[in-house]
């Protein structure tokens, strides 16, 4: 049976209250807050986080294919999935693919995975959906959109959740689009795009799917519905006869926001975190057509209870202290020229040291057992040359040995917290702490790794690992 072997999700640490946005621009406030990626995060880094959550206890080398789904790939030309595969140290012949342009890309990727597995070209497929959409200041989307990611490992060996039926339909209806050289989405007036579009197309698709699945809406313990906003979410549930109290999966508009291609996947993770064996789940995804899936939860779900998912990442948060900080996070402020030193980056070094820098794999000396990081030619303890075994450190936690808080930093948000972290099981890491409240950092605190964009010097995204206080 084809289905979900594991799931994971990621909600960035920072939350921007909609009151802050209203205060900045005047006018009414939306409810609650939205999750916003830190300045050092993008769709790729959040996707890595969700994948790491999903793959707890799973051998990364067992993955045969990786599909990375996003509306906000970090590059227009340059595959993000290949970078993520490097980060996760997948085997070299892993099939990688970027999927973009439609918010329903993740559930469409389920179909590709099902076909790949059915054909025998893959046994395990990792699907990651992640979005960090930049919105125009003082726009409706600014209130609405949030950032986040989800990941699913799909396969046919005793899945935790079986995917029983799938229904796909395309639609060329123009409701939301973005031109290649424009930063923000365009749309048409609500009455047309919802009245003639979503609010008509969605119920028709669900009805057609249920007919094909030979099921009724009452058969499902939980229903996961894509919607462009909270109002349409409620309306669609009502139109489909979904009981809002017992059946409808919350859409997180009030505490995360609309996360684009990660929106339905994140809701599905939240559903699975609460699901019991035997539960039937219906998912409806939308965007240039519809994907509808029927799923059944099996007893295997119990093995996935340690995932942080939506639940734990939602509970772990820091407020964005003022609206302008959010603009800085999204690089929407025109900076004073010469304010910060420019950086550049050597591609040969990045390539040569990719295992070290991108996959965060250190070296363990075969002679004295010392963990070496960063890359060494001679062991830092016994000076033996070139006698090392690979030693992953990305999955190790550690303690703050010492730290400093640099107010003259070249990073967009001060202070930059430099930190020496001593790793459990040996080894030391020198880097930055991110997602932090500087007032609470102290020697001895437990920290873990998180994958980030450390700078854009040289016109490329320079990814590396930072530390953060343990979340979840």
């Amino acid at each position, binding site marked *: 049976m084809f289905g979900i072997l594991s799931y994971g999700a990621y909600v960035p640490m920072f939350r921007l209250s909609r009151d802050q946005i209203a205060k900045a621009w005047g006018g009414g406030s939306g409810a609650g807050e939205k999750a916003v990626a830190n300045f050092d995060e993008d769709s790729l880094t959040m996707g890595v986080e969700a994948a790491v959550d999903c793959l707890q206890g799973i051998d990364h080398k067992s993955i045969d294919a990786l599909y990375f789904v996003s509306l906000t790939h970090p590059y227009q030309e340059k595959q993000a999935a290949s970078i993520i595969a490097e980060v996760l140290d997948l085997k070299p012949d892993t099939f990688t693919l970027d999927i973009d342009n439609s918010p329903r890309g993740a559930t469409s990727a389920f179909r590709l995975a099902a076909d790949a597995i059915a054909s025998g070209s893959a046994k395990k497929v990792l699907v990651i959906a992640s979005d960090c959409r930049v919105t125009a200041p003082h726009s409706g989307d600014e209130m609405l959109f949030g950032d986040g990611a989800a990941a699913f490992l799909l396969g046919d060996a005793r899945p935790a959740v079986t995917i029983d039926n799938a229904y796909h339909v395309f639609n060329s209806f123009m409701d939301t689009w973005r031109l290649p050289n424009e930063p923000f989405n365009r749309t048409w007036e609500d009455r047309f795009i919802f009245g003639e579009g979503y609010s008509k197309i969605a119920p028709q698709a669900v009805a057609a799917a249920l007919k094909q699945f030979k099921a009724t809406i009452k058969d499902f313990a939980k229903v996961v519905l894509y919607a462009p906003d909270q109002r349409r979410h409620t309306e669609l549930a009502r139109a489909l006869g979904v009981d809002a109290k017992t059946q409808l999966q919350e859409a997180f508009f009030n505490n995360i926001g609309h996360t684009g291609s990660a929106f339905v996947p994140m809701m599905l993770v939240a559903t699975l975190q609460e699901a019991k064996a035997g539960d039937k789940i219906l998912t409806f995804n939308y965007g240039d057509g519809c994907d509808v899936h029927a799923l059944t939860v099996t007893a295997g779900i119990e093995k996935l209870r340690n995932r942080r998912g939506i639940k734990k990442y939602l509970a772990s948060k820091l407020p964005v202290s003022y609206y302008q900080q959010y603009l800085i996070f999204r690089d929407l402020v025109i900076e004073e020229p*010469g304010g910060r*030193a420019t*950086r*550049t*980056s*050597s591609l040969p*070094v*990045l390539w040569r040291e990719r295992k070290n*820098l991108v996959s965060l794999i250190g070296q363990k000396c075969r002679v004295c057992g*010392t963990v*070496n*990081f*960063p890359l*060494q030619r001679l062991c*830092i*303890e016994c000076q033996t040359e070139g006698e090392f075994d690979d030693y992953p450190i990305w999955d190790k936690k550690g303690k703050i*040995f*010492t*730290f*400093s*808080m*640099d*107010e*003259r*930093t*070249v990073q967009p948000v001060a*202070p*930059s917290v*430099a930190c*020496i972290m*001593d790793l459990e099981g*040996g*080894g*030391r890491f*020198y880097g930055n702490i991110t997602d932090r409240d*500087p007032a609470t950092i102290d*020697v001895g605190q437990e920290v873990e790794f998180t994958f980030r964009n*450390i*700078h854009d*010097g*040289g016109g490329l995204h*320079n990814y*590396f690992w930072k530390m953060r206080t343990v979340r979840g």
Partner: protein
Amino acid sequence: MESIKDKVAIIGVGTNKRWGELYDQDETGIVLEAVHEALDDAGVGIGDIQAAWVGGGAPTGNWLTSIIKQYIPVTKVENACATGAETVRGCTFGLLSKTYDLVMAVGVGKMKDAPRGGEGAGDEAGVDKYHPVTGATGIPAGRYALAATRYFSRYGLSRQEGKHMLAMISSKSHYNGARNPRAMFQREVSVETCENSPIIAWPLGLYDCCAQAEGAAAAILCRTEDAKSFRPDYITIKGIGISVGPGMRKFHTGFDFTHWEESTAASKQAYEQAGIKNPREELDMAECHDCFSIAEAIAVESVGLCERGTIRRDVEAGTFTLEGKLPVNASGGLKSFGHPPPASGIREMFETYKQIIGKAEYQSRQLKNVELGLCHNQGGHPGRFECSVTILGIPGK
């Protein structure tokens, strides 16, 4: 191995008139001031110099070409913040080999002509600065701040106690600098002001950091047996130690940031050559590399002027003040002078020389009975240092 003790003499020193942000002067201009003073001090002409070792400035020391016309060997050396000491070391070896009889060491730093005030100068250089990760790590203050945080934690100082101790060190240096006409900052700064100054890289505030300054310094050297023919009151080199640490030491969990082995190793080499057994008792003054207040604290401990973890006691007792038992940075230090790396090392020797021969500019800053002094420089950052320790003194001591 044979000690170099007392074999080479310094017979003249000079610096440019005042260190600081010298926007109206070029590199050659400040070098000229330093070189002229050193030549006059030694009573020799530029034409008498047979070889020179220089640090800083343009490649091949071409700022000397407008001064030197006699087609002699000029060698540019680079050894991070130990560059100044390295020029003197080159001179010393040139004299000891008897290849030359009269040589000159010059160091210059003109950082403020660089963009962003020379920020980060002396940090990662060469291809290192293009490293996608390590090329992007922080400013020097942030690197030294790691040592300060650890020092507080290891020795049980509260954040306030730690900041207060560092403030006392900076305030002491400013007190000394206020009495030195060549210093960039000639103003006393209270402990309270130092302690509460704006944070640069916590726990280090503005007054924990030395400035980016410009300056030049020069020294004229000959073999000791010839020194008397130039002047009666020369001083001699007692020992020169240089140590470079295993570069990646900071990544070793055994490295705890509160002790700098490069400083200890360089001082051991120098003490052994100089025959110094108990530096705290035998030395009369020390110029220590205080690019940051915490740098002075740990350097003083690491070269053995007090036990590890105990400098707070000496700071509070005033051991290292101008009036104390063992003045540290009587000149005002890097704190008052700023730090053009290739020049700082020779400037420390300038100060030691003047104090030993009793020719400090003002009586108010002239130390009594100085026979042996230490000059310490370190470049790089905690865990990856290049360190020099030079002992100077009266001949025969």
